[in-house]
C-alpha cells in the first residue's frame, strides 16, 4: 500500500471554522437549531485521499456536501486553492465545477433512469468540451474500459446494471472530467462484500493512476484505513481526531476513535449508551465535550469545556483533554466512569 507522506505543498482545499446549522422545522413552535458542523477545519492536499469517518449524524456527509457547494455553510470559509468559495455563495463553485466531482452512495439513484449509460457519460464531456463531438462515443467506451466494463454497457439503462457495475460507471463519470477532487460519499457501503473489494481496488488504482484527490466518506474505519492517506474522525459535527490512516487506526488517541477501532475488532469496549440517550446525564451539553456523555474516560473538565483540536508534531491532532497515550492497549486502566 502506498501511503504517501502527506501533507505537503499547498492544500488543494481548505476548510476553516466551518459551521453549519440546520433549522428543524416545527411549523408553529420555534424552529429548533441543529448544528451539523461545528467549527470544522481541514486541509486537503492534491492527490491525497482523506477519509471522513463517523457514525450517522456525525456531519461527515454534510461536510462532503459543503465542500462541493451543495449546501451553504452558516459561517466559515472554504478555500479552493486560494479562492474563498463560501464567501461567494453558490456562484463560487461555478468556475470549479469541473474540478470537483462526487460519487454517491446509492449507485442506482445516481443515474437518471431515463438515459442510457453512454448518454449519461457523454453529457459532461459535451458540457465541458472534453473532447470533440465525434470522439465522444470512443471516449465513453474508453472510460468504461478503464473502470473494467465492456463498452457495450453504454447501450444499457441504469436499471439493467448491477450495483457494482453502476458504481464503476459512476466513477468513470466522475473521472471523465479529470477533476482534482472527488468526494465519495459512502461509495461502497451499499455494495456486497465481494463487490466492495472490487470498487475499493478500483478507487485506489484510479488515485494512483490519475493523482486525483479524494474525500472518502465512510462509517467503516477499516475501509478508510485501506483506502485513505489520512483519516478525520467526526463526532457530532466536530472532527475529534485526525491523522495518517494507519497510525490513527493502529494507535488511536481519542477515546471515540478507539471505540470505533475496537468495534471493528468485535469488542464493545467502554461504550455504554446510544447517542440519543447520551446527553441525559450532562448538565449543560452546550458547554461540554460532545463525547463526554458516552465517554468512559471523562473528567470534570470534559463537562465544562470543549476540548480543542490541537495539532501535534506528527501530523496528528485530537480533541481530548485526556487522550490515550501512544501504544495504549485496550485494557489500559481508564478513569473510573462516574455513572449515573
Amino acid at each position, binding site marked *: *500500500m*502506498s501511503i504517501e507522506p502527506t501533507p505537503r505543498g499547498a492544500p488543494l482545499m481548505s476548510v476553516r471554522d466551518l459551521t453549519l446549522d440546520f433549522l428543524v422545522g416545527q411549523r408553529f413552535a420555534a424552529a429548533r437549531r441543529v448544528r451539523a458542523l461545528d467549527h470544522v477545519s481541514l486541509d486537503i492536499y492534491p492527490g491525497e485521499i482523506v477519509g471522513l469517518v463517523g*457514525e*450517522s449524524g456525525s456531519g461527515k456527509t454534510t461536510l462532503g456536501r459543503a465542500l462541493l457547494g451543495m449546501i451553504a455553510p452558516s459561517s466559515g470559509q472554504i478555500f479552493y486553492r486560494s479562492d474563498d468559495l463560501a464567501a461567494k455563495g453558490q456562484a463560487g463553485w461555478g468556475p470549479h465545477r469541473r474540478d470537483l466531482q462526487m460519487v454517491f452512495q446509492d449507485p442506482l439513484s445516481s443515474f437518471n433512469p431515463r438515459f442510457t449509460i453512454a448518454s449519461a457519460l457523454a453529457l459532461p464531456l459535451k458540457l465541458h468540451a472534453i473532447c470533440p463531438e465525434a470522439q465522444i462515443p470512443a471516449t465513453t467506451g474508453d472510460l468504461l474500459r478503464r473502470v473494467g466494463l465492456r463498452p457495450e454497457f453504454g447501450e444499457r439503462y441504469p436499471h439493467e446494471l*448491477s*450495483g*457494482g*457495475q453502476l458504481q464503476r460507471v459512476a466513477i468513470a463519470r466522475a473521472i471523465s472530467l479529470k477533476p482534482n477532487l472527488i468526494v465519495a460519499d459512502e461509495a461502497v457501503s451499499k455494495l*456486497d*462484500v*465481494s*463487490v*466492495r*473489494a*472490487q470498487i*475499493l*481496488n478500483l478507487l*485506489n488504482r484510479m488515485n494512483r493512476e490519475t493523482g486525483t484527490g479524494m474525500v472518502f466518506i465512510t*462509517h*467503516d*474505519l*477499516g*475501509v478508510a*484505513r*485501506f483506502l485513505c492517506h489520512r483519516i478525520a474522525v467526526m463526532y457530532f459535527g466536530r472532527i475529534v481526531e485526525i491523522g495518517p490512516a*494507519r497510525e490513527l*487506526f493502529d494507535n488511536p488517541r481519542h477515546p471515540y476513535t478507539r*471505540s*470505533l477501532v475496537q*468495534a*471493528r475488532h*468485535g*469488542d*464493545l469496549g467502554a*461504550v*455504554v*449508551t*446510544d*447517542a*440519543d*440517550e447520551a446527553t*441525559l446525564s450532562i448538565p449543560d451539553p452546550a458547554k461540554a465535550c460532545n463525547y463526554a456523555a458516552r465517554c468512559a474516560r471523562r473528567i470534570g473538565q470534559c463537562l465544562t469545556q470543549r476540548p480543542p483540536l490541537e495539532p501535534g508534531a506528527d501530523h496528528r491532532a485530537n480533541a481530548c483533554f485526556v487522550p490515550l497515550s501512544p501504544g495504549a492497549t485496550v485494557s489500559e486502566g481508564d478513569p473510573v466512569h462516574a455513572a*449515573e
Partner: protein
Amino acid sequence: MSAPAILLEVEDLHTSFGIKGRRTPAVRGVSFMIREGEALGLIGESGSGKTVTGLSLLRLLPEHAHMDATVLNYRGRDVLGMSDEAFRAIRGVDLAMIFQDPVGSFNPAKRIGWHLEQAILRRGDTQDWHAEAEAILADVGIRAPERVLGSYPHQLSGGMLQRALLAMIIALRPSLIIADEPTTNLDNLVERQILELIRTHQRKLGASVLFITHDLAIAGEICDRIAVMYAGQIIEIGPTREVLERPKHPYAAGLLATSASLDRGDAELHELPGEPGGAIPVRGCAFAPRCAQAMAACSERSPPLVVVGPDHLARCLLHEH
C-alpha cells in the same frame, strides 16, 4: 457430552415467487437443523436467499410466494402441516424474529409502550405489563425506560428501536430467535451493543438463534455453526471455526480472503470476480461463472453437498470424492 436436542429441522426447503408457470426461485432446497441453545449463522450476499429462508420458516412470506419442504419440524412437531391458526399460536412465543429495519418494525402511529404492552399481553400471564416493560427495557440497556415507553417510533433512533424490538422478543421468551440482519442499518458502536445484547439474552433465555447476516466477522463472533448461502442454496455449512479457518467452497474461501485482506490492511484487496445475484443457471453450479477453479463439469451438473470435515459439508465438485 450428549448433544442438545434438535429444536428445528428443515429439509429441502424451496421457496419461489410469482405466479404459476413464471416462478422465480429464491430458495432452492435448503436443509439444516438447529439444536437447542445453538446459534446458527446464515451468511450470504444480496439475493442469496437467506432472508427468504428466515421468512419461510415463520410463514411470513408475501402472498405471491410459494413455499415447500419435505421436512419442517419444530421440537419434533411437524410445522408444515399446521393450520395457519395453530401456527400463529407458536409464533412469537416459540419462534420469533428480529428484522433488519428497526424503524419500520414499529407501527408509526403507536407508542413504544403500546407495542411492548401488546407483546407482553400476548404471552398472557402478566398482571402489570408496565413494570415488566420498564424492567425489560432497562435490561436491554435503555436508561430512561419511562421516556421510551411514552415515545413514538419516529422520536427514537434506530439503535433505541432495535433495543425496544429486542425487548418485545425477550418479553415473549421464545426458544428460537431468527435475527435477520438486525444490525445492518445501525452505526458500528450501536451494532456492537445490539449484538452483545442478543448474545446475552440468548444465553439467558436458553434460546437458539438463526443469525442471518452478510458479515462474516459478526457471524464468527455470534455463531456456533455457520451456513453460507449462494443463489438460494447452502454451499457450505459447518462449525464456525472450521468454516472460517478452513473454508472448502471457493465462494466462502473468496469471501473470507476478501475480508481478511481488508483486516490486514493489504495494499490490494483480494477480489472475487463478478457479482452476486442475477439469473441462476439452469444446470450446474450457480457459482461456476465467478469461480476461478471452475471445471467443465461445473456447468454440467449441480454439485451435491458433500462431507468435507467433521460436521462440515460443502457443495462443490472439487470435494466430491
